[in-house]
Structure formats: C-alpha cells, structure tokens
C-alpha cells in the first residue's frame, strides 16, 4: 500500500481541528531505585497488589511489594530507560492478556504481544492474568478422558479433563516430547491447547512450534513464550497468562489443555524476583510463598459443572529434576499439589524404553474415573503386572534357575514393555491401543520374537483400520469389553497372529532359499 503525504497531512489537520483538550489526572509515584528488573517507587498511596503501573517511556510494571514507605514493582519490559525520579502512574488495572479464538495459531509473549511476525492480534476481549480459582460448587469431578495417544499413559496413568498431572524427570528424558505428543493427539477433538514455555531456549520453543506446525496442531494451539532471555518478571507472569487464555475457552464450555513447561524455571524466576525485592529467603533460598505460587496456578485447572457449561481446563505442569532427585523443594511441592505424576527416568530412556515412564512411581489419582471402560477392562492390571515383572527381572539377573511360570511371566513382561514403547509424534487412537495391549496381555505375543513386535503392532493397526473397523468402534462404547467383544477380540488376535505366522514362515523360507542359492 502506498501512503500519500497529502493524506497524512489531511488526517493530522482533521485531528488538530477536532482535538479534544484532555487533562490527565493520575495517581503517581516516583522511582527512587531501579535495577535488575525491579523498581522501588515512592508514592502510589492507594495502589493495589499486582496492579499494573506505567513508567515513563511507556514501560509497564507490576506492583508486587507494598511496603511502609515504598512500592516494589517488577518491570515488564526493558528497564534500561527507567531512571531515578521518573514518574510512575497507576493504571487501576490488574495485568491483562488478550483472550479468544483470535489467539489460536499464534505465538505470543505473556503480555499478549505477538512474537510470530504475523501482525497484531485483534482480540475483542481481555482478561486479568490473576484470577481466583473456582469454588467447589462450580466444579464437578473429573470424568471425561483426555487421550494423550501414548499407550503407556492412556493405559496405566490415564488423564481426565480438568485434571492436573505432573510430568517430572531429569533433563533430556522426553518431558516436552510427551507434552507435544499430547497436543498432537488433540487434533480433530474439541480440545484447545496452550503451550507455555517458561525459561526455555528460543531454539527449543522454535522446535516445538515447528513440530506442531508440521502436524497441523498449531491451528488449535496457542504458544505463550517467555524464553530464558526474557526478564524474570515476564517469566513469572507467563503461566498465569496462559491459564487465563485457557480459562476463557473453559468458561465458554470448551475443553483446554494447558502445558506449563516448566515450573522449576518458573520457581527460579520467582526466587530471583523475591530476593531482589528483599523478601526473606527460605528453603533453597525460595521465598515462603513459593508453594502458593504454584498451588494457586494449578488450582485453576478444573472441570466445570454442567450448569456452567461443563468446560474443562487440564493442566500438565512439567518439573525438571536434578540427578533424578524428586525429594527437593519444588518437585515435592508440585507433586503434593497435582493429581498424580508421570515420572520419566534417564536410565529407562537410555535403555531404549521410550517414553521412559517409570510405571511404579507414576500415578494418576483421579484419571481412573475418566478412563474409557474398555481400556480399564483390558489394562486394569497392567501396572501391577509390570511392577511384578520389574521385580522378577531384577531377581533373574542373579542368574538363579527359574521355574516355568516365572520364565513365562518374564517373557510376558518383556513383550508388555516392548508394546508400550512408542515413537515420538505418533499418537495412537485409543481403540488401537486397547487391541495391542489386549493381545500382549493375553499372551498372543509370547511366542513371537521381540524385534517383530513393532511389525505386529503395525499389522494390528492396519486391520483395525480395515476389516475390523466395527470392533474398533465397539471398543469405544461405554459398555466396555463385554463377553461378546472379548470373544471378538480373541478371534481378532488369533487372525493377526495367523497372518503373521504365515508371513514369518514365508520370510524364513525366502531366507532359506537365499542362503541355499548363495
């Protein structure tokens, strides 16, 4: 578009002629100290806690410490231009963020400023980032499943809509991958996803965005990014902003999945701010209210009552542990707040078990109610079976002679572990998961070599998609695995196996022929 200078002059002239002479009356204070993203302000007599303030040069801040003779503010932007003596104005507003469907597919910072270079977000509504969590009356128990598309989770640690499930583990154990897989699996469902990157490398955020774009998951997702290079104040407000965006959808009766990646870095950012604000340090130098920091955030996850539309906000907070120690301050806090945890182990990850979920230490306290009946029927005892297998496996390492039953249990265990392995970014529909787990759990894979199992799995998926489409649909029914369906499942398994045995036989003959020819 070409801009005519005459046009600009005309607009300015009109503006001057019609200019409404305005007097600005504002409650103010003066900066008495500034540095490290913190400003101390004298004045601002009637300011509210968490109120947005405006510094000279249009930089915003947030009042965090209301002290006897000054107000401690965190600066939400560049603090280089703020100097001693600058005027600070009250805005009488709590920090707000744009909300609505206009945000879908966009990458924003925690203040709602777009970071994707795709122009302004024309959001019609704004909501405060700090909102009180809903009361008991407005909620209902978690009862609908939120499928992650990961066999190990949907079968053993099911997540329900409105639940708070912690993903915990050391660095590079697949925490983010697990969250991203869950987002990808929400394609063609009614779940909106919000991924909040707190203190992450920009390259990591870019990678997540790219993966989501590749899998067309960005269309129903919002990315809130407060990367490591942002000031701690921005990192501090990031999860609250994301929660608000999710709450807007929830209040419309829709379903939202919010991923906080990760809350350990959020706690670190808050610790930095608190220490700079001279709040007394406690354990590991975190301030006394670090528990409240996360509890008030995660309490915002909820399943609304039917009268309020039945919307939900599911929270998947991520915590990074150091040297697998989950007994440090922040992990224990968040474990106690959430409704369960998915524990990822470095040892499992490097032994090729991916997702590297430790079934023994992982738990979902409320997700069982939300698990679909068929999965509950098929995988109900899977966790116990796996736990027993782990014990036996440890015992078998001593080289003791094992009886037939124990050997059988070990064989089954190895197959179950193999079946629960899954590639990244390949979520599996729940009916297919049920079929695979049923087959492994009932021993149909026991006499097959481990390396063939992924091939068998593919065969199962193909058959469910083609000739056994009806069975797949039946598995999703609320009745679960009835006697009739069980019979059908057994015959399905037999056919898969027979197909397969035929193929194995064929390939082994071909191999023999090849050898003979040589």
């Amino acid at each position, binding site marked *: 578009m070409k801009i005519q200078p005459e046009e600009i002059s005309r607009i300015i002239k009109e503006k001057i002629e019609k200019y409404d002479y305005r007097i600005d*009356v504002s409650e103010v204070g003066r900066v008495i100290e500034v540095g490290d993203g913190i400003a101390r302000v004298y*004045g601002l007599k009637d300011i509210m806690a968490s109120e947005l303030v405006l510094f000279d040069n249009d930089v915003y801040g947030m009042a965090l410490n209301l002290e*006897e003779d000054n107000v401690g503010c965190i600066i939400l932007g560049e603090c280089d231009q703020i100097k001693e003596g600058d005027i600070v104005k009250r805005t009488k507003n709590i920090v707000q963020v744009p909300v609505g469907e206009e945000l879908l597919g966009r990458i924003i910072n925690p203040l709602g400023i777009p970071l994707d270079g795709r122009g302004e977000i024309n959001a019609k509504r704004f909501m405060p980032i700090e909102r009180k969590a809903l009361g008991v009356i407005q909620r209902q128990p978690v009862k609908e499943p939120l499928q992650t598309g990961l066999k190990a989770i949907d079968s053993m640690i099911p997540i329900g809509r409105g639940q708070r499930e912690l993903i915990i583990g050391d660095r590079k154990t697949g925490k983010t991958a697990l969250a991203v897989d869950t987002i990808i699996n929400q394609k063609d469902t009614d779940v909106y996803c919000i991924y909040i990157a707190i203190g992450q490398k920009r390259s990591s955020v870019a990678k997540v965005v790219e993966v989501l774009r590749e899998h067309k998951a960005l269309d129903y997702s919002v990315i809130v990014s407060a990367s490591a290079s942002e000031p701690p104040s921005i990192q501090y407000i990031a999860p609250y902003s994301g929660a608000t965006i999710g709450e807007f959808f929830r209040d419309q009766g829709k379903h939202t999945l919010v991923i906080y990646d990760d809350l350990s870095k959020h706690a670190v950012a808050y610790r930095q701010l608190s220490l700079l604000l001279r709040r007394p340090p406690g354990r590991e130098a975190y301030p006394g209210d670090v528990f409240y920091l996360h509890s008030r955030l995660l309490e915002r996850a909820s399943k609304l009552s039917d009268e309020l539309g039945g919307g939900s906000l599911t929270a998947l907070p991520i915590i990074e542990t150091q040297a697998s120690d989950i007994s440090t301050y922040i992990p224990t806090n968040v474990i106690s707040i959430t409704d369960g945890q998915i524990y990822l182990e470095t040892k499992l990850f490097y032994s090729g078990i991916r997702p590297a979920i430790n079934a023994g230490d992982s738990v979902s306290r409320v997700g069982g109610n939300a698990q679909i009946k068929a999965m509950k029927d098929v995988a109900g005892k899977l966790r116990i079976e796996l736990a027993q297998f782990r014990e036996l496996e440890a015992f078998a390492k001593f080289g003791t002679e094992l009886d037939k039953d124990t050997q059988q249990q070990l064989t089954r265990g190895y197959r179950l572990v193999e079946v629960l392995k899954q590639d990244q970014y390949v979520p599996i529909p729940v009916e297919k998961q049920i079929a695979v787990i049923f087959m492994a759990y009932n021993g149909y894979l026991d006499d097959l070599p481990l390396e063939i199992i992924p091939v068998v799995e593919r065969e199962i998926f193909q058959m469910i998609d083609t000739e056994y489409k009806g069975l797949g649909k039946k598995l999703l029914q609320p009745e679960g695995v009835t006697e009739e369906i069980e019979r059908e499942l057994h015959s399905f398994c037999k056919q898969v196996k027979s197909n397969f045995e035929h193929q194995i036989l064929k390939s082994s003959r071909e191999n023999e022929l090849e050898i003979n020819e040589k």
Partner: protein
Amino acid sequence: MIRNIVAKRYSNALIQTFQPDKLKLLENEVKILTNFLRDNKQIEEFLISPVAENRFKKEVLEKLAEGLKISDRFNDFLKVLVDADRIFFLKDVCHQIVRQIHQRLNIYDFQLLTAYPIDSKTLKKIKEFVKIYVSGEVHLKHSIDKRIKGGFLVYNENLAINASIANSLLNFKREF
C-alpha cells in the same frame, strides 16, 4: 529508605503529643528551626556530627530553643533525638513533621509547573481546579519549567494533574 521510616516514626510520636489546635504552632516552630539550620550550616553540621558529644549538642539545642522561642516539648523531642542518636535524621524528621501535620489538617502541598509566569488570578483558578480532586486546603509551590511548553502541571507525591501542552502533544503522537 531507612531515613524515611525513622523520620515517620519519630514525627508521628511527636504529633500525637499535641492537641490538633496546637499543630499549626508546632509547624511554625519546625519551620523556624529548619530555616535557621539552612542559614547556619555549621550548626547543622555540628548537630549531625558523629564525633561531637551529645551533652554539647543538647547545650546547643537549649540555647537555640531560647533564641528561636521553641516550645519546651519540641525542645525535649530534639533532645530525645540526640539521646537516641537519631539527630542525624533531623532534616528528614522536620520534613516529616510538616507533612504529617498537613495530612492531619487536610492540607495538600502541590508543586505547580507552568511554562511562563502567571498572575495571581490564574493561580487562584488553578487552585480551585485542583480542589476538585482533593478534599482539603491546597498549597501550591509555583515554579517555571519551559519543557511543558504551555498549560500547567500540578503534582505531589501521589497525584499528578497534567494539563500541559507537552502532554497533549505526547497523547496526540500516541494516537498515530
């Protein structure tokens, strides 16, 4: 910041010992002392000096009280400051006393900035205008600041009324 906290506490304690109708008298005494110390820097330096002995400081204060006709209570207060080694904050305490008296008497001190000198009629008009926003007596301290270009700016530590041309131009610029 510690200066403010200390000054606030001491001045608050002193004001509480006065009846409301005597506060104006106290304000006058404080102003007399402040003006005197401003004109006699050496005495102020002596009073706040950490090496000077407290008994000599008290003697000086006694003589000052006689000469400046300071009431016994205010004089005793100054001695308490000396005993508590807080005389170092004398200037801040005096400032706080005046501020708190004004607060109690509903007097609002404002700084008025204009780009050009103004007559008493305009000053009165501005005072009336400021009174809309505060419920009490308004005291304006006028000074000239060319940077505001025109109009006026009235402010104190909690409120700013910006009717300056500079601000209007800034708002105009923001609209584009």
